[in-house]
């Protein structure tokens, strides 16, 4: 019987992260979630998931901090096992016009959303290459592809993610490791559904040919496909999942 593969999902308790974590567990992976050290509700989430039959490993990791990422991944690999799959899903927004944006607002988003990809992937890549098998999925955004008013920091970080994906994909292609970006559009997470209905209906939904928000489970489904053996020929790709909102 094939050994159960271990997947780490950063930001695994968030709106998208929870779907990714639960669907991957349903698909048979051993899932470890990371959460922000400032998250005070992590225990409640773990208990809620236990009630639904999920036994996640959970670790507080400041993904914006290289040293913390390094220490925590050592801990995960010691306590759970070698990491086969990394989903770089953690991300924050600090939305405001460029005119109002401070260096701190820029740095926070760049460090959490982009540096995190380097910080976490660096800890797992040697092992994946040594075992000749690995999957890294970097979660970008439609706004990394097309830009968005009020998101110079977020758009830059999300766009930068794909540059990282392409370069690393070239380096490890012959080692059985694939690196891919996914670019979700507007997905029905708590953050998005909190947007006032009149703005959602008048400004956001009209941009989406499918006429609806994406479901977090649909993003999870794409990630599960990319993790499969059958997706071994997909690498360096940026897969849009946006209801047709942005095509190129």
């Amino acid at each position, binding site marked *: 019987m094939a050994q159960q593969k271990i997947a780490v999902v950063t930001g695994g308790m968030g709106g998208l992260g929870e779907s990714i974590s639960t669907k991957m567990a349903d698909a048979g992976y051993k899932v470890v979630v990371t959460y922000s050290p400032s998250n005070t509700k992590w225990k409640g989430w773990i208990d809620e998931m236990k009630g639904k039959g999920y036994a996640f490993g959970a670790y507080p990791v400041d993904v914006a901090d290289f040293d913390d990422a390094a220490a925590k991944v050592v801990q995960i690999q010691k306590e759970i096992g070698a990491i086969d799959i990394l989903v770089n899903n953690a991300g924050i927004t600090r939305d405001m016009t460029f005119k109002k944006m401070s260096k701190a607002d820029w740095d926070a988003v760049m460090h959490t959303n982009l540096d995190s990809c380097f910080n976490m992937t660096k800890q797992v890549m040697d092992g994946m290459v040594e075992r000749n098998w690995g999957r890294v999925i970097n979660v970008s955004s439609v706004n990394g592809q097309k830009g968005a008013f009020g998101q110079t920091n977020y758009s830059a970080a999300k766009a930068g993610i794909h540059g990282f994906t*392409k370069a690393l*994909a*070239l380096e490890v*292609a*012959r080692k059985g490791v694939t690196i891919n970006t996914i670019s979700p*559009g507007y997905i029905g997470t708590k953050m998005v559904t909190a947007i006032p209905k009149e703005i959602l209906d008048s400004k956001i939904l009209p941009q989406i*040919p*499918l006429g609806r928000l*994406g*479901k977090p*489970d*649909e*993003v999870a*489904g*794409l990630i599960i*496909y990319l993790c*499969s053996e*059958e*997706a*071994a*020929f*997909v*690498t*360096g*790709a*940026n*897969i*849009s*999942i*946006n*209801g*047709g909102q942005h*095509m*190129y």
Partner: protein
Amino acid sequence: MTRRVALVTGGMGGIGTAVCTIQKDLLDKLVAGIPIGRMAQPAEIAALVAFLASEEAGYITGANIAINGGMYMT
């Protein structure tokens, strides 16, 4: 339960058919240009098609999904 019907045009052919007629030294040169270092298996292309046909892929539309072993990245 609703049954969905898939129409596959050219369903009797095979991805490998045309490739087999290319001279070996040229084929070797082509494969050398693919970062993964091999050609795709037809089943890998089929798996992507099957995924896109699934309910879970209902939010993917208008996309151009590269499945090329890293040969061309955009």
